[in-house]
Every structure is written in C-alpha cells, then in structure tokens.
C-alpha cells in the first residue's frame, strides 16, 4: 500500500518535471522559430527558462482580492490534473497515471476548469482589459470546444470505450494509428488545437498590442511565473494527449518528444504567417469546417 502511494507520488513529481522542462523548451523553440520566420536571430532556445527564474525572483506586491490570488493556482491545478490523467508512455512504467474508465469525459471537463478559474481571478482585478480578455476567451472556448468534443465523441462511439488507455491499446493491437482509421476526427481535433494553443490567428485573448495581454494584465512576478509554468505543463499534456489518441502513443521518451514536437509545430507554423482574427471571425471559423469534419467523424463512427 505504502509502496504504491510512493510509486504514484514519485511518478507525479517526475512527470511534472518532465512536462515543465519539455513544455518550456518547446515554447522557447516557438520564439526561435517565430524569430527566424521574421528574419531575426531570435533569443536562445533556453530563454524561457531564464524568464521563468526572473519572474520567480521578482517581488509581488499586488492585491486585488482572494480570487485574484487563486486564479493562477486554478490554472496550475487544472494543468497538473490533466497531466496526471493522460498516459505519457505506452506501458506506463516510469510515469504511472491515474487512469480510469471514463477519463476521456473527465478530461473534457478538467481542461476547461483552469481557464474558468482564471476568468474569475481576472474579473476581480477590475481591469477593463482583463474583462474584455475573459469574454473573448470564453467566446473562443465556445468555438473550439465543439469540434474538439465532436472528435472525442466520434472516437468513443467508434471504439466503444471512454478510456484513453483502451484507445492506445486498440492502436497497439491493430497496428494502425487512429489518425488513419478515423481521419475526420483527427482533422477536427487538429483544427480545434489551433484554438487551444491560442497562437495567431487565434491569439485574441492575449492580444498584447490591443488588450495589454488581457486576463493577465494585472499579474506580474510570481503570478506570471505560475501562469507560464502551468501553460508549459498544459501544452505538454495536450500534445501528449494528441500523440496518445491519434499517433499511437510512444514507447520511449525521444519518440514522444519527436511526435509532440511535430504536433506542436502545426499551430506555431500556422500562426507565424497569420494576422489576428476578430472574435466573431474566430468563432465562425471553428463552427465552420472544423465542426463539419467533426460531424463527418461522428457519421463515420456511427455508420461505418
């Protein structure tokens, strides 16, 4: 009993450290790629590590109320919870996860929990930019959640399971990635990913020049540190989920990093050559082709 608890605790710690370092490195590479596309040299790939240490070493003398302090913590809780539920490697030896029947449905809930907590925290700061950012973020979430949930429901119908590990086992048994056996769900999920990562053209929440970084505009120092680290953990968790569901998971760490990096480059490279959408354009985009592909995926799952 005690050994099992220790096993899970250490697994959680190790997977958190892994997710943090890989996620932050990916974000640094994102800055580098953006810089190279803009014909700049760009910061070194470890720039985000330096930024995180600096943000942590800053003092924070801001007080707007309890919810304002709790907002970033909600984000962190949501990220860590989704990380612990998503299996990192195929056999789950080194990174034990809290998998259970129905975790795919639970994941849909818990992935929206963090942004909602952050929305409450941003609301209490009383900054008008935060309020506008929150409304924009919730509108965008209403946009991309529809193709995303449609893709997941299609997978659930097609394979008659709501467990991520079961879906991974199916891919291992048949030797076919779900990317090929349910392509429409894959397309819908990838298109929903653009909204999840909030890079251009869907960076309507942050929008630095327009909204002064939106919901986080009153947060500096350690709050920003929490948000940045939770963002990197969440990015890694989401990418791992995509690799698990559609690319057959990974047997070892280099394979996982390679697969997640390829997936990560899709929104990044789409973003660097695009300007920003307005809110209604973004929502209309998500309710257009991505939802159509999601519907096709459900039809394919039910009738074929």
């Amino acid at each position, binding site marked *: 009993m005690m050994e099992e608890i220790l096993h899970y605790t250490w697994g959680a710690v190790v997977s958190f450290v892994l997710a943090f370092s890989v996620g932050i490195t990916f974000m640094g590479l994102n800055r580098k790629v953006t810089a190279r596309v803009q014909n*700049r040299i*760009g910061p070194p790939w470890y720039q985000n590590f*330096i930024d995180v240490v*600096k943000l942590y070493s800053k003092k924070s003398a801001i007080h707007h109320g309890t919810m304002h302090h709790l907002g970033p913590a909600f984000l962190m809780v949501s990220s860590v919870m989704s990380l612990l539920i998503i299996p990192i490697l195929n056999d789950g030896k080194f990174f034990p996860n809290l998998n259970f029947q129905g975790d795919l449905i639970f994941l849909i809930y818990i992935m929206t929990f963090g942004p909602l907590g952050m929305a409450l925290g941003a609301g209490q700061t009383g900054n008008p930019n935060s309020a506008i950012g929150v409304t924009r973020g919730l509108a965008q979430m209403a946009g991309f959640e529809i193709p995303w949930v449609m893709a997941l429901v299609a997978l659930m119908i097609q394979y008659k399971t709501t467990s991520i590990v079961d879906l991974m086992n199916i891919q291992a048994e048949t030797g076919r990635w779900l990317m090929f056996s349910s392509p429409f769900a894959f397309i819908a999920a990838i298109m929903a990913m653009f909204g999840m990562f909030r890079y251009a053209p869907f960076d309507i929440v942050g929008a630095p020049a327009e909204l002064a970084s939106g919901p986080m*505009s009153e*947060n*500096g120092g350690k709050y920003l540190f929490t948000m940045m680290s939770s963002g990197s953990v969440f990015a890694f968790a989401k990418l791992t989920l995509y690799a698990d569901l559609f690319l057959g998971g990974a047997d070892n760490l280099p394979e996982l990093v390679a697969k997640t990096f390829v997936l990560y480059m899709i929104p990044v490279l789409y973003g660097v050559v695009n300007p920003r959408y307005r809110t209604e354009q973004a929502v209309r985009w998500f309710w257009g082709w991505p939802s159509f592909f999601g519907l096709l995926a459900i039809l394919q799952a039910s009738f074929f």
Partner: protein
Amino acid sequence: MINDKVSQKIVDIIQNYARKHSLWVLAYGTGCGAIEIPPTMTSRYDAERLGVRGAATPRQADVLLITGYLTTKTLKRVIRVYEQMQDPKYVIGFGSCTINGGMYFDSYNTIKALDRYLPVDVYINGCMPRPEAVLEGFAKLQELIQAGKADGSKKYKENLEWYRANQKEVIPVWRMPEFNW
C-alpha cells in the same frame, strides 16, 4: 528562507544572471524617441536576442523606458506607472530631453532633469539616439545588474520624501493613491 551567506551569494548570482538576460521593457513612448523603438525590436537590430522584450503592462515590466521629453502632465502618469511596477525595476532615460531638457530647455511645461523625479539607472544621450545606442544602453544596464549596482528602486524608497517634494512642485493637483509596497 535562506540565512547563511554562502547560499545567499549563490542565489544572488543566479537571480542576477536571470534578471540580466531577461529584461521586459515598458516603453513609455510619448516623446519623439518612441520612433527608435520599433527598429530596435524588429529584424534589423533584434533586441530579443539579448533577452530584451516588450511587456504589455507595468505589472509585468522590469524596465521603464522613457523616450524623450516629459511634460508635467505626462510626468504624473509616469510616476503612477513606475509605482505600479514590481521590484526589481529599472528606469532608462532616453534622449537628451531626459538629461537636461534638450531642445525643450526653456519650455514652461516640460521637466528638465528626469533624475529629480524618478531614479534613473542608465541614460542614453543623443537626439535621437540610434538603435545601436539603445542596445548599448541595454548592455550597460545589464552590466550594472550583474554587478548588483542597478538599485534605483531602493534609492527611490529611501529618498521618497525628496522625490515626492520635487514631484509635487511641478504637479499642482496631486490626487494619487498612496505608494504601497
């Protein structure tokens, strides 16, 4: 948390390294100097390779870049912005106007020496300073941070009465929230 001197020294070295290589700049661009900021940040001079990056709000910023002259009206806003920033924070005075008034030396409604109102860590002179000079100024600030000498905010806290008296001299209607750390 850490009490003994050796580990404090190690922590200081790491923190100073991080602060030096990650300067988030809030450019207060009401003066004409703001036109030199875009070329500094974009592909020609690319300040991001030094870790210098724009910040959206005062809460997130480390460096307050005051580009050019300050009228008495904008000085009030600058003071407010500076007091909203989180420690450690630095001020760069940009252009001749912040040093001695520059071409506005006999103007009735601009301040002449920024140092009387806010603690300035680094001055960049010139009218206008070119992007090379701006990068030079950032390099100088990085040197000061590494040596632990960029302590403008500490000076401001210690000499708050003096700064306040100077500020209230030029701002007749003083309706501002108290400076609370």
